[in-house]
């Protein structure tokens, strides 16, 4: 991994400040972040917890590929994408994207691009566990079989 792009799938809780510190840079005036959190309700069913499974080495590779693509579109200083694996209780963060840039527009747009493409392409799967069972989810952005 480069010293400007940080990608990690981890079973540890995600700490926003730690990830922001990774992308912090005295030359970069803007840091934008996206923080995805387990919701307590999905389609009126009570979610007890989420379980994330990932094809870890490929997920990290896909995320680095997405970052490379973002870097062709915007001038970005540093980037970080952290995604949790395993059990994530309600109210805890499952994903954090953080991007620094000289000007604000770049980091804001890159964060949106990165989380959208993560949802579309990263080999990561979410199982929602309800009080009455569980189900593997599917993102709306999902790539279809060709």
């Amino acid at each position, binding site marked *: 991994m480069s010293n400007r792009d940080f990608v990690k799938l981890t079973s540890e809780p995600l700490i926003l400040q730690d990830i922001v510190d990774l992308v912090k840079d005295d030359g970069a005036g803007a840091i934008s972040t996206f923080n*995805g959190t387990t919701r307590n309700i999905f389609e009126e069913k009570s979610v007890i917890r989420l379980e*994330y*499974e*990932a*094809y870890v*080495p*490929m*997920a990290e*590779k*896909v995320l680095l590929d997405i970052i490379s693509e973002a870097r062709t579109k915007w001038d970005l200083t540093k980037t970080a994408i952290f*995604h949790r694996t395993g059990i994530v209780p309600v109210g805890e963060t*499952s*994903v954090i994207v953080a991007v620094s840039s000289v000007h604000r527009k770049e980091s804001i747009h890159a964060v949106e691009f990165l*989380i959208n493409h*993560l*949802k*579309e*392409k*990263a*080999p*990561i*799967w*979410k*199982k929602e566990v309800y009080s009455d069972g569980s189900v*593997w*989810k*599917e*993102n709306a952005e*999902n*790539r*279809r*079989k*060709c």
Partner: protein
Amino acid sequence: MSKEFTILYYATARDATKMSSEKIPLPSQSPFMSLKDLTMLLKERHKKLAPILEYSLYAINMEYVENDQAILVKEGDEVAVIPPVSGG
């Protein structure tokens, strides 16, 4: 010893096969297998996997491959069945 490749199952594919990976031998007459033949072979091995393969992708050595690509599975490859993803 026969030539093998590895296949990985995730999410619904893992539930259907009740395994996270297995090694599969390549046919002795040919050291390569098309994606179409791979799909047929997997459907035979795991009946419950058939409907899942209809809407899954393959990745070979951590790269997505399209079904219509002239790509062949070869000895030592790591092939993954990628059901619709839901990260984020």
